[in-house]
């Protein structure tokens, strides 16, 4: 087991998250993709903490913060989605293109 594999896995997860972030039409699925991104970051932080900083494990502290903030962010995100849904009766991302040119 090496650091690179964790990093590669995290990068793959990040890419999958990006793909979902950009291509999903459902707003909730966009939020889910963001969670994937944050988890990929958490994986990175944990891997670095384990292999490079196994005594002070600052990465794990970061991870805890990221999870906390991600939870808060998901809550606010879902609230925003709900607010939009109440106005426009849809969560289709392609309908939310009012602020163009």
């Amino acid at each position, binding site marked *: 087991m090496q650091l690179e594999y964790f990093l590669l896995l995290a990068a793959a997860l990040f890419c999958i998250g*990006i793909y979902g*972030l*950009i*291509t*999903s039409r459902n707003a909730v699925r*966009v939020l889910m993709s963001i969670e994937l991104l944050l988890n990929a970051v958490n994986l990175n932080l944990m891997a670095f903490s384990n292999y490079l900083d196994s005594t002070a494990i600052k990465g794990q502290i970061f991870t805890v913060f990221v999870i906390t903030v991600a939870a808060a962010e998901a809550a606010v995100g879902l609230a925003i989605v709900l607010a939009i849904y109440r106005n426009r009766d849809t969560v289709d*991302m*392609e309908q*939310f*293109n*009012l*602020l*163009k*040119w």
Partner: protein
Amino acid sequence: MTQYLLDTVWLVPLYALLGGIMALPWSPGIIRRTGPRPAGYVNLVMTLLAFLHSSLALGIIWDEPAKKVVIPWLSTAGLNLAIELEISAISVAALVMVSGLNFLAQIYAVGYMEMDWGWGRFFSLLGLFEAGLCALALCDNLFFSYVVLEILTLGTYLLVGLWFSQPLVVTGARDAFLTKRVGDLFLLMGVLGIYPLAGTWNYSDLEAWAASSPSVNPFIISLVCFGLIAGPMGKCAQFPLHLWLDEAMEGPIPSTILRNSVVVASGAWVLIKLQPVFSLSPIASSVMVGIGAVTAVGASLIAIAQIDVKRCLSYSVSAYLGLVFIAVGTQQDEAALLLVLSNALSAGLLVMAVGGIVWNSITQNVTQLGGLWTRRPISGISYLVGAAGLIGLPPLAGFWAMLELGSNLWSTQPALVGVLIVVNGLTAFSLMREFCLIWGGKPKQMSERSPEVSWQMTLPMVIALGFVLHAPIILNNVHLLPSWVNLNQDVALLLIWSSIFGGSISAVIYLSDFIHKPIRLPLQPLQNLLAYDFYTPKLYKMSIVLGVDLLSRFADMLDRFVVDGIVNLVGLISIGGGEGLKYSNTGQTQFYALTVLMGVSLLGAIVTWQFWGDSFLDLMSGSVSMISMK
């Protein structure tokens, strides 16, 4: 006192200029109440002053050597422009002639312009002309001669365009200005081209330079000489720059007197003064002779086919200045000066005589005139004497001028003697034709009741008549006539015979009833060709005017569409860019996320570009070996 008069003879042009300026207040817009006549009287007084001054000075300087007067004008680094004047017998004599003829023309104008309110403008322009011509006569410097010639060109434009409410006057003035201007511009090229060669613009220095047979490239000196010929060519209404004189006949007759006699001679004056330079280039001399010969023959043929009496005379003037060109081209200054003198006196008299007819008979069309001899004897006699003075009839000055030219050419260039004889015969024919059509035959409707004109027009006519008659005596007394023994009697006989033949054939044709009038030539196209002066307006329109017109239209289009278009295109592209690129703001948050990602990855790629080569390959091979090791 007498010496003082001679020393101040350079003031003569200023008198005329002052007269011209003093005439201006009587323009109808300034002095509104008293009418324009004082303008003419003031000018007459100033011209008389100029005439008396120059006449007295002429008497003093006659046996004295020429004097130089230098008035500094402008001195800059490497160039010293001074107004150099030459006060010699010949230049003062030219002053006398110019101011004398202008005095006569102005008295004539007092009568002729009776019913006109534009005296202020007319007389101030006559004053300007007199000043310019006097300055030209005194001027001993090619550069200032050019300056004066240009001022005279502007003066011609204004004077021909006096009655600018007539459309033909406006086009005539335009052509007169542009044609002469083109010639003057070529002259400027010559003037500028000769300075590096000779290092001077002073005529006598130029003569000395030319006499020292400098080693200049014959090609260059020929080009310079062509430039110097082109100026007088336009001024003297020589082919192909002759149309302006025809159209300048739209101007008032008193100014025509001046123009036909002296203004066209201003070009010849410069030409004569530059004759030593022309002798450096045999090609230029033969070109000058060619132009002169073609003009002389062509214009005298055209003069026969005109029905407008002023235009008949203007083409005769072109023909005579063609003879002057021949004289200068064959290095005969004396003959050229005699020709200019005799032409000035006779042409002035002819225009005066004819102008009187036009004044009372309204029409200028010779085919509508006739039978005036019994009622208009003074004008008739004046015309006859003027005609006799112009063509080669023995006692008068024209004969001596042509005889001197002919006998000098007799042994060297007999063909030119032939031209001279032909031109003389044709001019005799055309002048006699006009006489027979106006004064001979039966009265026609337009000339049924035609009284003799008033004394203001008759007096200058008779004085000019006296001058023409006395010219040979005066010339003989001052030993200017060529002595009879040196001249070729054959040429004299030929000249006399050609005059008699031309005149009498014309008289027989036009006074007898054998031939039906109006005369039709068997070859109608030929008659039209001559009557429309070789279709020169069409030639101009088809060549130069068309070319310049097309080029200007093209340049205008180029400016409007290409140059302007390129600049507008920049703005248009900016607008188009903004209009097109705003669609990158799609309003889709996900698209923005994509652009952010692409920006970051691009930046990352650029930053890490340096590691992409070997180290990237190493990384790959390292991982491959790592995998293979497992």
